[in-house]
Structures are given as structure tokens and as C-alpha cells.
């Protein structure tokens, strides 16, 4: 069992069983909604409304409202899909893998990271459907007996996607919920109004904190962690195959699976920071989410930055190494073509910028961390967009070359999805404990008797 480092343990010693529970539970139960939350809620609610309005319009008119065309038949929607799935990674990584590795410090950030995962993956799953020409037939991608006696085509990576993503969604949901049960019980017992007691009580599934319950809970939690861990790798590997199995230069690349997973963790951790820092600030959680946590995340960012950098390098290298004229032309277009500014921008964001984290002071500057997390999110989205769009616009036949120019609807759906994500997260903060009470208690207990 890895011991907690001093700078995480120290502040905990100030806390007791009760005070921890009070602190976290009160965020949900008693603390009134302050203006920052209300403001955020209003804005994100409006954004979500816009998001769903745009979707309705999309269903009425067709995907022609986007900037897509032949040759670039995939646009923002697919980039958004890959990006959101990526963000959906950090949660499970932090909870499951760090749990298995007995990294105790994860305790204070895993809960909201998991929530983030759920919301992100859910939104990601939406985009491929929105991007269909005939979305009302999306269920044809699933195998079910039908009067046409037809089945999905198993050679297609999109079918693999359906399974990868739905599995990931289900497991993450169970994992998150299993972790919640004891806390729900705590809330049930602390809630003042009957309505809240009933509501939390229903979901607490009659948890009474008996040793028997704890034993089962422990094993279930570990089991799910074991299940979730391989998924962290599999999901984004499968997503990357959507591109890798294509013959188009820029898509057709064996490095994609690891390269996409690294990218996923990268953007995932960036998003964790984007969420953790304001939360920590507004809810005074500095003692639980310590600078140490932030510093660790910064180190992960630095590492992932190098991993994706390797990916960028290998792509370029193999293009020239292969000697394939089309691959080379694609790389040259990427470096100097119509979309080149975006490529250089993503290199700046994903490779150059994170290097500041070599300096300890940078790693411990909260505001710099926050800024950097935004930068990395931007960079990773741009990377997805460049892969999806730039690879296609100059492929094999010059006669068919063309450019993709995003329309207002492309932007609406991107920004709308972000608003909806934030909306869900704000609700989560309001109604569920953002930090695992039970696990924090455990931690505090251990520190007390250490």
C-alpha cells in the first residue's frame, strides 16, 4: 500500500471523520447555490437549449447544413466524437488503474473524474448518430433479428465502435454508481427534507453500512476496476481503427491506436484540471484537492505531451520512410497546405506549451495550470479536426480535391455540446458528492492512526 506523501497527508490531519462528512455532504445538502453556480447554470442551460435546437434543425434538413462535401465527407461531428471520447478516458484511468495501483491520492479526484467520463462518453456517443445521413436508422448498426434478414457488417470499424463505446459507457456507469452507494446512504441519513431522504434512499439501495455490505462493495468495486482497466485502452484503440483501416493517407496508419490512447489521456487529464481547479476554488476544497494533486496531473500532461509528440513524429517519419508519394504529399500538405496553420497550432498547444511543466513553479501555479488545461484541450480538438479533415481534402486524385469550410451549424454543435457537458457537470456538483465521502473518511482514519 503506497503511503501518502506528506503534502497530501498533512492537510488531511486537520480533518476528522465527522468534519470530512460534513464538509462534503454539506456542499450538496445545505450549502445554498451561490451566484457563480447559478450564473454557470443559466449560461450552460441556454447553451444546451441551443444544442438541442440545432439537433432538431439538423434532423429536419439533413447533414447538408454542415460544411462537409465530397471529398471531405466527415467534418466537425467526427472530430468532436473522437475528442469527447478522449476526454472520457481520464476518469476511468484515474479511478480504475490508480485504484489497482493503490494510488491513494486519487481518492479525492476520482469521483468527479468518473462523472466527467460518463458525461463526455455519452455526448461522444451522440455525434456519430447526428452525423448519419438517415439518423432514424441508426439501429441498423446493431445486430437484431429483422424482416430483411440482414445483419451489420462485421468488417466495419464503425460496428466495432458501437460495441466498444456502449460497453465502456455501461461499465463506467456501474463503476461510478457502485462507488456512490455508500455516499448516497450517508446523504440519505443526513438529509433534512423527507423528499431528499426518499430520493437518495431509493438509489442507496438500502445500504446500511454493515460489514457484509462493505465486503461485497469492496469486491464489486475491485472487480469493476479490473473490468474497466482494459476498456481504457480498448475504446480509443477501436475508435482509432475507424481511421486506421482506411486506405487514405493520413488515416491509414498503424501507430494510431497507442497514439490515440495517449491523446485521450492527454485531453482527459487536461479536462480534469479544467474542472478541478474552479471546483476546488469555489467549494474551498484546497485541503482535499491539494497542489500535489494538481502537480501530479501536470506531470501526466507533460508525459502525454511527449507521447503524442512521438505520434506526430512517427506519422511524418513513416510517410517519408515508406516513400509512398501519396503519403509524402499528404504530409507536405499538412505542413504547408491549406490547413497548415492548424497543424502548427496543435503542435504549439500539445508539444511546445506543456514543456513549461519542467519547472516546478509552473506545475504549482494554479492559474497557469488552468490556462494550460484549456490550451491542451484546444490543441487536442484541433488535432482531431486536422486528422479527420486535412487528410481527406487532398487525397489520391487531384481532380477531386476540395476544401471543407465549417458552417455556423458546425460551430453550434461543437460549442453546444461543451455547454451541455458543463450543464450536466453543474447538476452533478449540486446533487451528488463530488468527492467520495467514504473513501476520504478511510483516508483520514488512516492518517489519524499513522
Amino acid at each position: 500500500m503506497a503511503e501518502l506523501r506528506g503534502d497530501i497527508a498533512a492537510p488531511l490531519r486537520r480533518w476528522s471523520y465527522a468534519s470530512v462528512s460534513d464538509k462534503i455532504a454539506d456542499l450538496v445538502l445545505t450549502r445554498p447555490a451561490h451566484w457563480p453556480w447559478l450564473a454557470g447554470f443559466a449560461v450552460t442551460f441556454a447553451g444546451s437549449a441551443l444544442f438541442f435546437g440545432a439537433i432538431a434543425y439538423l434532423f429536419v434538413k439533413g447533414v447538408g447544413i454542415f460544411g462537409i462535401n465530397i471529398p471531405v465527407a466527415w467534418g466537425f461531428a467526427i472530430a468532436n466524437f473522437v475528442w469527447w471520447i478522449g476526454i472520457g478516458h481520464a476518469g476511468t484511468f484515474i479511478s480504475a488503474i490508480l485504484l489497482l495501483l493503490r494510488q491513494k491520492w486519487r481518492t479525492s479526484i476520482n469521483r468527479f473524474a468518473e462523472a466527467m467520463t460518463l458525461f463526455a462518453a455519452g455526448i461522444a456517443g451522440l455525434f456519430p448518430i447526428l452525423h448519419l445521413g438517415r439518423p432514424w436508422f441508426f439501429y441498423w448498426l446493431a445486430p437484431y433479428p429483422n424482416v430483411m434478414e440482414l445483419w451489420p457488417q462485421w468488417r466495419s470499424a464503425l460496428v466495432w465502435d458501437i460495441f466498444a463505446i456502449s460497453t465502456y459507457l455501461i461499465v463506467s456507469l456501474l463503476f461510478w454508481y457502485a462507488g456512490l452507494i455508500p455516499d448516497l446512504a450517508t446523504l440519505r441519513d443526513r438529509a433534512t427534507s423527507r423528499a431528499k431522504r426518499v430520493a437518495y434512499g431509493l438509489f442507496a439501495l438500502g445500504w446500511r453500512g454493515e460489514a457484509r455490505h462493505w465486503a461485497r462493495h469492496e469486491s464489486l468495486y475491485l472487480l469493476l476496476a479490473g473490468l474497466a482497466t482494459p476498456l481504457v485502452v480498448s475504446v480509443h484503440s477501436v475508435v482509432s481503427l475507424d481511421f486506421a483501416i482506411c486506405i487514405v493517407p493520413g488515416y491509414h496508419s498503424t501507430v494510431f491506436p497507442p497514439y490515440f490512447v495517449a491523446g485521450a489521456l492527454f485531453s482527459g487529464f487536461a479536462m480534469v484540471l479544467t474542472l478541478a481547479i474552479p471546483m476546488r476554488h469555489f467549494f474551498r476544497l484546497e485541503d482535499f484537492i491539494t497542489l500535489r494533486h494538481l502537480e501530479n496531473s501536470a506531470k501526466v500532461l507533460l508525459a502525454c505531451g511527449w507521447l503524442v509528440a512521438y505520434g506526430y513524429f512517427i506519422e511524418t517519419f513513416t510517410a517519408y520512410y515508406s516513400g509512398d508519394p501519396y503519403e509524402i504529399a499528404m504530409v507536405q500538405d499538412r505542413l504547408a497546405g491549406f490547413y497548415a496553420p492548424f497543424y502548427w497550432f496543435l503542435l504549439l498547444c500539445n508539444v511546445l506549451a506543456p514543456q513549461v511543466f519542467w519547472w516546478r513553479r509552473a506545475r504549482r501555479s494554479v492559474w497557469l495550470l488552468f490556462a494550460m488545461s484549456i490550451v491542451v484541450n484546444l490543441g487536442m480538438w484541433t488535432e482531431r479536426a486536422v486528422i479527420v479533415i486535412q487528410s481527406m481534402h487532398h487525397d489520391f486524385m487531384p481532380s477531386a480535391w476540395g476544401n471543407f469550410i465549417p458552417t455556423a451549424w458546425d460551430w453550434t454543435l461543437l460549442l453546444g455540446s461543451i455547454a451541455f457537458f458543463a450543464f450536466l457537470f453543474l447538476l452533478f456538483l449540486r446533487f451528488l458528492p463530488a468527492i467520495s465521502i467514504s473513501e476520504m473518511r478511510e483516508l483520514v482514519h488512516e492518517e489519524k492512526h499513522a
Partner: protein
Amino acid sequence: MQVFSPVAVLFLKIAALAGVAAITVGATALYKFLPAPGGEVSPAQPIPFSHQHHVGDDGIDCRYCHYSVEKSSFAGIPATQVCMTCHSQLFTDAPVLAPLRESARTGQPLRWTRVHKLPGFVFFDHSIHVAKGVGCVECHGRVDKMPRIRRVASLEMQWCLGCHRDPAPHLRPPAEVFDLAAPRPGRDVQDGLMKTLHIASVRRLTDCSTCHR
């Protein structure tokens, strides 16, 4: 203190189970009782035309009215003048035939209601089926026993495939194609027909391109 009494818990559990059951049953029922695609099985017609009478009793050959069934994808619906060849003499003042006489007088065609409707992307050709020994009765049933025409086949893709995957059992000698009463020949005869009629390979028959363009 307790939020849920043991009774409440029990109730909740039962309710949950009941809910699941209700949804399953409901969905199945709904699916069962909804009309199949392809519309009504036996819609009303402007004239209560009886195939039983014309085919069964009078023994008129299918091709007398469905004139293009051997030459065209479309079997053909008789023109008013075809009906009038007899009905200018027979039942000349039967009230049910008023629309027919009206049509003959004004030259305005009758508007029958389609019974066998295929989606726009399905291209069925009567002539080739007839030429290859698929009897009318295979798809249309014993119309000679139908006072009011009725659709007997679902016309769903799986139904078409059933035959295209194994045509032999549905074949009969070309001479009997239009004979609704004749029983199906034995399997050996049918296997013989597969050869003499040069029925394309099942692979060919189940290509998407066979019916969809």
C-alpha cells in the same frame, strides 16, 4: 431513522419487477397487433369484384385481364373496355357495376385500390417469374376462392428471400403456371425444372442487384 419500512421495500421490489414485465409484454403486444407493412390485406374496391366468380365459376384465364403478365414487369390491370366486352351484355343494369358503366361512358378510368404494394426501391418483374415456372398461386394464393381479393403474402424481404434461397419447391411446369388448382409437382419434377428452366444460381438470385437498383 428509517426512510423505508420493510413493507415499502417489498412493495418497491415488486413494483420494479412488475414494471419490467409490463414493458416487455406491452411492446410485444403492440408489435403483434400493429398492421404489417404493405398496407391493408383486403382494402375496399370501387366495384366489389369477385375473383371467385370470374376465375373459379366462369373459369376465365388470368391472362385475359392481366394481359401483360408474360411480357412485362407489370401484370396489367384490365381496361374498362375489357370488362365491357362481357358486361355490355351481362348484368347491364346491375347497380354494383354503375362505376364501370360510368367509366365506359365518360372515358374516365376506374380507380382500384392497390392490394400488393412494394416499396419504390424494390423492382419486381412478373414476366420472369411466370417464365421460370413460379405459379400465380405461389404469391397470390387461391384467388379463385376469394370473393374479395386478399393479400396472402407478407411481401416482406424475408418472404421473398425464402423462395430466392430455395426456389425449387415453388416451381411447377410452365403449362400449370396459371392453373391455381393444380397441386405442386413432386420434388423430382421440380429439380428437373431447375435444370430445364435454367434457374440462375442461388447466389445470383440472392444478389441485392436482383431486386434493388
